């Protein structure tokens, strides 16, 4: 599926530590909050503006559905955050869960069946690109299925030593193409990779 230029891309946008963790061993995220700044908000908004659909797992969805509507209402947040919040609230949200009963966040759709099938179907629909935030289980299962076209890795200047890895139980070695890097004043480095051809296809 990756590589077909006519289809909308699926982008994974993830905060990771230098040692490749997306959270501490007890799901701690405290290592990343203090680095966030307006410059990063602006960049995140630019990325989000290129998409029209957000794919989420249940846990991330529940946190975001509570958080982003309140940011959009609260004008004490910096302008950059409000712009981002507005898009989070208006973009289509697809939630993948077998247990969630209903969704209250504006423009959300619940998918209880196969995420792979749904993503393949969505890729063939017209529209802008799609993005996954957090949602590690969903992200990892789509990674294994080879359905992620682009990885935007927000790399925080922290070594945690232990935690939950982003790249977990991958089956095939894969080669990526670096399409951009950006270094923020907070010390976060964004590395933007697109999926290239699996290495196994052209190994000697």
């Amino acid at each position, binding site marked *: 599926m990756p590589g077909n230029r006519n289809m909308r891309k699926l982008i994974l946008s993830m905060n990771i530590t*230098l*040692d*490749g963790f997306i959270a501490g061993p007890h799901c701690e995220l405290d*290592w990343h909050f203090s680095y966030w700044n307006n410059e990063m908000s602006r960049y995140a908004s630019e990325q989000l503006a290129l998409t029209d659909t957000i794919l989420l797992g249940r846990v991330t969805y529940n946190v975001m559905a509570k958080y982003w509507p309140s940011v959009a209402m609260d004008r004490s947040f910096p302008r950059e955050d409000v712009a981002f919040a507005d898009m989070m609230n208006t973009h289509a949200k697809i939630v993948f869960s077998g247990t969630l009963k209903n969704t209250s966040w504006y423009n959300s759709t619940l998918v209880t069946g196969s995420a792979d099938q749904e993503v393949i179907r969505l890729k063939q629909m017209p529209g802008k690109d799609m993005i996954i935030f957090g949602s590690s289980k969903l992200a990892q299962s789509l990674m294994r299925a080879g359905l992620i076209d682009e990885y935007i890795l927000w*790399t925080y*200047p*922290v*070594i*945690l*030593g*232990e935690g939950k890895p982003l*790249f977990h139980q*991958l*089956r*095939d*070695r*894969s*080669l*990526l*193409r*670096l399409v951009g*890097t950006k*270094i923020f004043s907070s*010390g976060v*480095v964004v*590395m933007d*990779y697109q999926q*290239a051809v699996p*290495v196994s296809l052209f190994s000697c």
Partner: protein
Amino acid sequence: MSDPGNTMNWVKDTFNDEMLREISNQQSRVDTLLLGRLTYQFMMQYWIHASPATEDEKMIRYMHNTPKIVFSRTLGKVHWNNSILVKEINKEEIRKWQQRPGKDMAIIGSASIAQAFINLGLVDEYQFLIHPLMLTKGKSLFENIKDRHALRPIKAETYQNGVVCLYYQPSGRQ
């Protein structure tokens, strides 16, 4: 940093002249190499058989002539030119080396040595070369790291081949 067979063949696919130049620049700042047994043995095998036909001549000379400190409890002797064997990593001893006049010291590869140095708080600068590749399985540089370390980036470079080189120093922040 290596695949399950403990090889680094994946590095060859992306290595290029730009990276060689950067490594040569780094080497001019470094007058002592710190190595673990496996990296030492691998490098010695490689460099004693390297010829100017296949490798940069300056690099060959540098690798042979630069003092090498090899950390190993199992090696009996070290044979490569300008190598000495040290049986254990002693924090106070290494602090003393760091205070001596001279150029910088560099750990190359040597995951277990790097981990021990990170855990002892002895690393003053990190240089990561991140290749655009997912290996799925292999050896991680950061296994066995005990504490959280906050760093600050000094420099980031990207090469034509998609390798990103990130330089960090400890930030002192928790």
